[in-house]
């Protein structure tokens, strides 16, 4: 997952195509694709949360 995240950060246009359904990430299941999109686009949320 490290390499996929780095690739999408370095190539934001690919991430946008995935978001718009114009491209797909081969071999990545739906939970992971949704996590990639939300995780990268809303990374700032990590700064204001904690759990147990």
């Amino acid at each position, binding site marked *: 997952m*490290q390499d996929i995240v780095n690739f999408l950060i370095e190539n934001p246009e690919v991430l946008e195509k995935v978001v718009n359904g114009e491209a797909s990430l081969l071999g990545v299941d739906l939970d992971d694709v949704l996590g990639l999109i939300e995780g*990268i686009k809303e990374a700032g949320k990590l*700064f204001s949360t904690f*759990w147990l």
Partner: protein
Amino acid sequence: MHMGVVGIEETLTLVKQYMKHSITSCVKNTDLKNLLLSFLEKREELPFAQITIIHHQSFSGKDEEIALLAAAVELLVLSFDMLDDLEDLDNVDEPWMKVEHPVSLNAATTLYTLGQQAVLSLQSPYKLQIIEAFTKFSIQAMEGQHVDLKNLILTEDECLEVMKNKSGSLIALASISGMLLAGANSPLVEEYSYQIGLAAQIDNDFRDLFNPLKNDVSSQKKTLAFLYLQKKYNDQAIEILKGFQSGKPINEYFSSSLNFKQKLIDAGVAQYLNVMKQIAINKATRMIRQLPIEENQSERLNTHLIIELNPKNKER
């Protein structure tokens, strides 16, 4: 008492009473007894007890002993928290870190034993299964802690396995014991508990990057963040690694907490950690919705585990 008509808040009050009673009735030494009671003072929200109670209720459990079981879970988790701090030598503001460590260590093992004792005192026909769950997930958490302490992690997969064992096992213990007391047993509960443990641990590890009372940065602990940085995808990652190795408090190295936050975004670490957290949450949510319980119960469970226990929007 009937759990169908008693809410979580009232049950948590009972849980606290059971925790105190467990100490006062089993420990005769006044000094040790008072020390243990003082450690309970800071435990206000009892999140693991909440997980046990809500699982019991979600699986239609109405057993009067749920508060006693939840107290056993909290005693056990408290002992694990104490042992973790004593082993990592951090969180120095915790009360057990302010007394002689051998004394705290003995107190932690006492609490661990009291947790086991509380489970043994259950009258439930499912007691044996609950004891087995306590033992299984305690050992798993200890195994995760061992690998973590030895800092033997080399890969992302190894790191996820340790997080699953160390953090997920205690959530699994809390969830599954509550479910078992209701006479139910779904394997999905163990699986999503690990995912919730992962998400929680990612947030906590991220928060600890900014916490000068934690040793994660200075000891270069092999967290997901550290492993990502070690890939050295960009100059910012290399700079953060240098900051870790500098021996200085990380916020000081980068002049301010704000600068360090920006550096984590520029390096891609914040995005990576958030991706890993979101994936874990998505998997947990999907499994919770597949549980063989009524839809309103699975939604309530999801709300409690993913939304209420998750972001408390505390400003750093």
